């Protein structure tokens, strides 16, 4: 990862950016996000198979934005998240330097958003292989069996909202669950209310989820809630032939009407 360190150092030294968002090793075996502001500390940046968190979540965090112009270490899901955030006007394309990382872990030269778009378009945009089997298994179940599966899983939810906080697309400053007039979702954790929350979360991400799996990874009690949004990724692709986070001018699938939209799913 010498090229990543060199590039990060260079960007900080020539003041092109004020912070590089990447990964570092912690005191345990897990890697974690790092915010490098001092070129002398660029050497602590790492990139290996432990670097799994979707760092795009920090692009909208006030304290990180406050540091100044940002460079971000970006694997494919991070690049797609950046694309979504640009299309939803949460960040500006020219305010971020993308330190792209290819599937084999090497540094890509992402000069601008057009180059990034080109890289994304060439990539496999479906759900990751490791989840396809699980999704297929869930789809094979009868609606009753599937309901029972989710009821069991979601009964474990403690409403810590790690799934929401870990997601780069969940950037609302006031989430529906924080609205209490009316109270859309019960504050307490109970199976019924937990299901309402997770269904609502998934629906808000329909056509916006970029299949990073971060929500499921973040869950402290191990609920595979990423399978809900990933199922919707398949559905949206099936009905609208669209994958999220592929262009800076993308319009939201569920809030855009096209005369030739399929209507077969409307009961």
């Amino acid at each position, binding site marked *: 990862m010498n090229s990543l360190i060199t590039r990060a150092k260079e960007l900080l030294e020539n003041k092109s950016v004020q912070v590089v968002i990447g990964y570092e090793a912690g005191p345990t075996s897990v890697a974690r996000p790092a915010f490098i502001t001092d070129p002398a500390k660029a050497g602590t940046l790492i990139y290996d198979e432990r670097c799994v968190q979707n760092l795009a979540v920090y692009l909208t965090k006030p304290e990180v934005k406050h540091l100044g112009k940002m460079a971000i270490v970006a694997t494919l899901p991070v690049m797609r998240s950046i694309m979504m955030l640009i299309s939803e006007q949460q960040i500006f394309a020219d305010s971020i330097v993308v330190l792209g990382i290819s599937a084999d872990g090497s540094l890509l030269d992402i000069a601008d958003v057009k180059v990034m778009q080109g890289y994304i378009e060439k990539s496999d945009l479906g759900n990751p292989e490791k989840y396809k089997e699980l999704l297929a298994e869930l789809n094979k179940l009868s609606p009753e069996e599937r309901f029972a599966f989710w009821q069991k899983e979601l009964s474990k939810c403690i409403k*810590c909202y790690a799934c929401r906080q870990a997601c780069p697309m969940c950037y609302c400053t006031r989430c529906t669950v924080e609205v209490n007039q009316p109270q859309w979702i019960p504050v307490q954790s109970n199976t019924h209310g937990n299901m309402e929350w997770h269904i609502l979360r998934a629906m808000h991400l329909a056509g916006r989820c970029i299949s990073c799996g971060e929500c499921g990874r*973040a869950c402290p009690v191990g609920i595979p809630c990423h399978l809900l949004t990933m199922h919707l990724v398949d559905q949206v692709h099936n009905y609208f032939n669209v994958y999220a986070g592929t262009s800076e001018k993308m319009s939201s699938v569920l809030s855009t009407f096209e005369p030739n939209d399929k209507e077969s799913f409307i009961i």
Partner: protein
Amino acid sequence: METTRKSIRKQSLEKLYNLLSASRKVYAPVIAPDKQVEYKYNPDFAEVTFEHIRSTLSVKNVVFPKVENLFFYSNAKTESTITDIDLNKIPEIVLWGTHPCDNAAFDILRSIFSWDINDEFFSKRFEKLVVIGLSCHLSDEYCFCTSVGLTPNSAKGSDILLSRLQNGDYQAEILTEKGNGIVTLSPELFEPISGEEVTVTEVKQKFNHEQVTVKLASAFENRFWIENSLRCIGCGACAYVCPTCACFDIQDETKGKNGKRYRSWDSCGFGLFTLHTSGHNPRQVQSQRWRQRIMHKFSYMPERNESLGCVGCGRCSSGCPVDMNIAEQLEALQNI
């Protein structure tokens, strides 16, 4: 009560468990199909694990449930009727196989729930709790009980503390009258101690909590909080898995004319936690909320409750999606 030491064979432990399980709610750790360690009521003894380091969630829910109904109400045209909860219906619960960190947490919770007014819901549940603890013969990189004044075989909070002996049997320290009550159910299961050594894991001390408390007194405005909380994403995982976090929200839920008031776990990591009706928020950004978390446990509580708000179980760090490692941060704070 003076502590007595006995020895109990593995087979006798099974008999004791089955005896308790037949007549009481026994809350014991099992390994779930997804490999997470969770507590269940009255699982078969064969399912109960003696090999866990930490359960995903703490066991604080036995005295501080994630949702507790406080009262029910119904509204008629001119008046409302309130129906209280019958606290006498709260059953006795025997906690089985909880580790010394989790057991020490109960006294910290007690200090919070009886700080100004006595919380009758907590008190009743605590009164009905019997703790059969289990010393740790396993630990990992997240454990730091020895940094907060505990050890892997601290007896604090246990009514009986079991420790594994080298021959696979267990030592039973009978520490309280409640513990003695369990022994008298079947005294023949408890035999004289054999002289075998107990097997206890070693947990390295990472920081000196007294020095941390001293440093925190003047660290409120330190840059440390901003620099070290940039990666915190502001979820409530650390608070909800924590055995000593006791903050709660109170809500009314009404359906038609009837409703209930309940309290449920809350977390100081959430922005909404301190948001005023006026729109002003005294903790606007995550660094202020992270500071509050550490200050509360290591500065405010030692001063106000005369105990730390942490038992070193490591759940907040192992469960954190972004590796906010509290022991590492406290170690750094000791040296600022």
